């Protein structure tokens, strides 16, 4: 089975490569144009998402959420600061209630909770 799947995937990739090459030579392929600003914003968002997961294991989920969620929304282009702060706090409170209070999930040690004695 592993050999069959690998062989099949390789054959399909080869077919796709060949048809794409033919399309490029004939000029019938779809032209991909990248907007530099959008690519930069996308890259920063991806970096922030990776940082979210990394920081979660270091300083805890709730602390990371308070830092990263507003940052992600800001990078995305959201600028209403009051709504951003209120929504983030509300989101963290709801998650705390569900995951700590209701489900008792043992999340990584949290910096913020240890500071406020939670």
């Amino acid at each position, binding site marked *: 089975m592993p050999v069959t799947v690998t062989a*099949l*995937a390789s054959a*399909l990739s080869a077919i*796709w490569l060949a048809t794409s090459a033919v399309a490029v030579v004939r000029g019938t392929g779809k032209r991909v144009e990248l907007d530099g600003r959008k690519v930069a914003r996308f890259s920063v968002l991806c970096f922030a998402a990776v940082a979210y997961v990394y920081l*979660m294991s270091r300083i805890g989920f709730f602390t990371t*959420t308070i830092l990263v969620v507003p940052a*992600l929304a800001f990078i*995305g282009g*959201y600028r209403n600061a009051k709504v951003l702060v209120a929504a983030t706090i509300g989101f963290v409170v709801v*998650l705390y209630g569900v995951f700590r209070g209701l489900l008792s999930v043992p999340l990584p040690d949290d910096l913020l909770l240890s500071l406020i004695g939670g």
Partner: protein
Amino acid sequence: MEIFSAIASAAPGVFTIPVIIAMFIGTVVGIGVGALPGLSATMGIAVLIPLTFSLEPLVALGMVAGIYNGAMYGGSIPAILLRIPGTPAGIATVFDGHEMAKKGNPKLALDISLVSSSLGSAVSAIALLLLAPPLAAIALKFGQADYFWLAVFGLTAISVLLAGNPVKGFLSACLGLFVGLIGIDALTGNQRFTFDTPDLLSGVNIIVILTGLYAIPPAIDLMTGKAGIAAGHIDVSGSRAKFPWHTLVPVWIRSSVIGLVIGLIPALGGNIAALLAWNEQRRWTKNPGAYGTGEPDGIAAPECANNADTGATLIPALTLGIPGNAVAAVVLGALLVHGLRPGPELFRANADVVYGFMLTMLVTAGFMWVIGKFGSRLYVNVLRMPGKLLGPFVLGLTIVGVYSIHNSMFEVWLMLGFGALGFLMERLAIPTAPAVLAVILGPIAEESLRRALLISGGDMSVLLAGPISWMLAALTIIAVLSPLWKAIQSRRAARTGAEAS
């Protein structure tokens, strides 16, 4: 009679406070998820499954039923009010729904959509309750070779039908087959693609790949502003027009049948059912020219059909363990998380849970009507929710949800990796559904093939020993050859067109 006694035995479990609350919350969330463009029932259930991990199976499944039914109706709200379908299944509702809203009757359009959706869901749930148990009894007669062909047929049909380019569909299926192979081989005990990583020894959890592929790409789209809408002032008051009950009854009957039949066929979904129902309704009427101008039948037909599809899609999924589309695969994922293995045995071993789940599909159809009737203004506010704010919340919820399954950071990283892969696949027009289905169907096909060969002592003819195997093998060949047939037909049509001009 056995079916009715099983239903009666499961009913008390459904009408308990936790299950009722779960169904209510699921329906409220489902309508909201469906109303927001960029979010779908598949994504809603995928995000929710990890959160329901520690709940009782029926409580979790009640919530899943609510989301599934609710999202189908929710998609019609922006379709009617803003001309933007919230889900693909809401596309056909735009044609007449938005026109009726523009004429000053948004409330009537929403009411027709709500009643039609609720009726479609109820018919679908009843069909699920009545058809699934006999089909499960038939499935018990399936041999190992039949199961092998069934899995191969399901995978082939979905790979071919879901992708514009079948090569990309099969490539996606290969990715899923590869993921399904990871872990310890159950028959030989050998490690496969584990790369000496202890976290991979038990394989990749289906929920990790589901949330990665279905929750992360929409979250990225929301954050980058590709999804979501800028809804300004929306008026849902409208005139007090009379609800056209008498003219809609035949429309509901016809559309329910269309939705049920489409739901049973692999790879088709609510969007196909809705478009087909709208078109059939136009063909049946004496005044087809009125369609697309705000005709009540033109709203009722697609909304009834796309909801009638929901329960029907689950019939092959629950009875055979073969999901016909992405949302059925996600529902199977929800069952697997709670230790319930879909297939004919499920109806024997966990009758109360499976019948209870089917009953929740029926009850949530009623909840949907109540919530939609009294909460339409609330959902108009949901449309105003900024996507750039919602995206990070979806990401956060997904991360903590996946972590909570096994308290594993490795699975969170894996989910993020699948998310990136899913985003890339979407940009390359590679469908993600065949990959998810292959994760479920691949191991079924492999296990059945190896068992059939073990029993026959390696004799390959066992694969075509029975009529069911023959039929499924023939259907698989037809599915593989269908793109060729389509290409020949379109080339012939183009040539005829060129000659005519």
